[in-house]
C-alpha cells in the first residue's frame, strides 16, 4: 500500500492541480484509506496550494468525506421515510447487535463502521443499505446479516 503522501501525489497527478480537482482527490483518498486523516488533508493542501482550513472546510461539508477514522467496510442504512416505513429500525438493530456497535461506531477489528444515511434512491425497494459503493435493496434482518457475514469472511 502507498503511503498517504505518495497516494496524494498520485491522485493529484491523475486529476490535475487545480481547485476543480479537489473533490476527486479527496474521494480517491477516502477510497483507499476510508477516511481523511490530518496528514492527508495537509498533504492535499500542500499539493494543491490551498489553505488547510479550506481543504478541511470542503471535506467536512460532505457526508461521504469522513474526517474521523472509519472501518474498512462502511455500512450505511437508509433511514429516510419510506425505508423507515419498511422496517429500517429492525435492520439497524440486527446489525448493531451482530457487530456489537452502535450507529456511528466502528468495530474493534476496524472491519466495519455502521452509519445511517438519507434517502439512497431505492425507496421502492426498501429497506436498503450501501456497503462501500455496493447497494443492497429489499433487506430483511436475515438477509442483512448474511450480506455482512460475507464481507466479514472476505480478506480484503
Amino acid at each position, binding site marked *: 500500500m502507498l503511503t498517504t503522501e505518495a497516494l496524494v501525489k498520485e491522485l493529484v497527478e491523475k486529476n490535475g492541480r487545480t481547485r476543480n480537482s479537489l*473533490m476527486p482527490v479527496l474521494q480517491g483518498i477516502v477510497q483507499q484509506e476510508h477516511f481523511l486523516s490530518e496528514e492527508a488533508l495537509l498533504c492535499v493542501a500542500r499539493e494543491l496550494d490551498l489553505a488547510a482550513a479550506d481543504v478541511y472546510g470542503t471535506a467536512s461539508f460532505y457526508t461521504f468525506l469522513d474526517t474521523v477514522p472509519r472501518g474498512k467496510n462502511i455500512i450505511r442504512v437508509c433511514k429516510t421515510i419510506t425505508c423507515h416505513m419498511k422496517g429500517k429500525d429492525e435492520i439497524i438493530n440486527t446489525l448493531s447487535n451482530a457487530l456489537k456497535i452502535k450507529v456511528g461506531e466502528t468495530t474493534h477489528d476496524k472491519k466495519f463502521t455502521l452509519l445511517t444515511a438519507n434517502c439512497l434512491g431505492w425507496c421502492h425497494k426498501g429497506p436498503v443499505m450501501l456497503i462501500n459503493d455496493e447497494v443492497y435493496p429489499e433487506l430483511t434482518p436475515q438477509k442483512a446479516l448474511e450480506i455482512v457475514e460475507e464481507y466479514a469472511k472476505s480478506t480484503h
Partner: protein
Amino acid sequence: MENNLKKVDIIFEVDDKCTPLEVLDKTLKRSADDIILDLIDSGLKGRGGAGFPTGLKWKFTRNESGDVKYVICNADEGEPGTFKDREILDRVPEKIFAGMTICGYVIGAKEGYIYLRGEYNFLLKNLLKKLEDFNNALKKRNIDFRIYFKSGSGAYVCGEESALFESMEGKRGEPRNKPPYPTVAGYNSKPTVINNVETLVYTTMICHMGPEKFKALGTSDSRGSKVFSVSGDTPIPGIYELELGMPLHEFVNEFGDGDTKAVQVGGASGHCVPRKKFNDTIIGFEGIPTGGSMMIFNSSRSMYNVLHDYLEFFTEESCGQCTPCRVGCQQLLKGIEAVKRGERPPAYLDDLKKLTGTMKIAAKCGLGQSVGNPFNSIIDNFREEIIY
C-alpha cells in the same frame, strides 16, 4: 371506477430503428435555431421540479457570448421518494449522452459533465464503459464534444444547481446568490446549461419523434409525459412514465392499496394531499408540479412521524449558510416535538407556520424555501395527529 390514467413509454422505449446516435446524426444536420424552436414548440419544461422551459434555457445560453460554455447533467437525485434518474441512468444512458451532445451543439459547448450523486457510484462501472463508446463515436464523427463524470459525496443540497457548480469547483456545496443565473455564469463562471437527467432524455426523444407527438400528451399547462417514482404503501412500487396533468384520484386508483390516506406529491419538499382532496388535485404545473416522487401513505401511518422524518431530513441536509433555513429547520423540528409532548399549546403550530412563511421569503435556496410545503400541508390536513 373509471380510470383514464395514461401510461406512456417514451423514455424506456426500445426502438430498434432509432438509436441515440442516429438521432444525433439526424439532429446535428439541422440548425441550432431550428432545434431550439422545436424544443420550445414541444412545451418541454425541466423535469427536475422547477419546470423552466428547456428550449428557452438553451436559447439564452446560446445567445451568451464567450467561447467556453458547458452542458451539465444534474444526476444528483436526492429527494426522498425519488429514484427515477437512477433507473434512466441505468437503462438508457445513451439517450442522456445524446441529449447533452445536442445541447452542446446548440449552445456551442465542447464539454459536458454528468454530476452523479455519490450514492450511485455503483452505476459508474457500466456507465463509464458506455460513455467511452459514446465519446469514441463522437470522435469518429468529428464532433468536438466530450462528456465526463463527476461524483458527488453525499450532500442533498448539491442537487441545487449553483451548489452543484460549487461542488464541481472543489468547494463546499453551498448555493450561490442569484442572479447571475447559470445561463450567464454557471460552472467556472461560464455560461452553462444544467438540465436534469430526465429532461435531457426528453430532448433526445423530441428530436427523434418531433414536437407534435410530445405536445399531444398532457395538458396545455403541462405538456408531455414524465417519469414518476412510486413508493410507500402501494402494492406496485416502482417507476412509471405517465402523461402529465392526471387527477390524483386516478393515480390513487391505480397505485393505492385501497386504504390510501394521503399522497406526498413531489418528495419531502412537496405537498401532502389528503384523501378528501384527491378528486380536485391535478398533477402538473397547473396543480401540484413534481419532480416525480409520489409517496403513498395508508391509514395506519402516523403523519406526525412522516413530518418528523421530513424535518429531520431537512435539518441534516440544510447547508447551514443562511439563518432562516439553518435555524428554521431545527425550530420546526423541535417545535412539533414540543407540541407532541404537551410542552407547547396546539396554537404554537400556527407560530411555526408563520416561521415557514419567513423561510419561504428569506431562505436563499429552494431547500429552505420549500420546507413549508410539507410542513403546512401536513399541519393543515392532519393537525390532530400532530397534537395527540
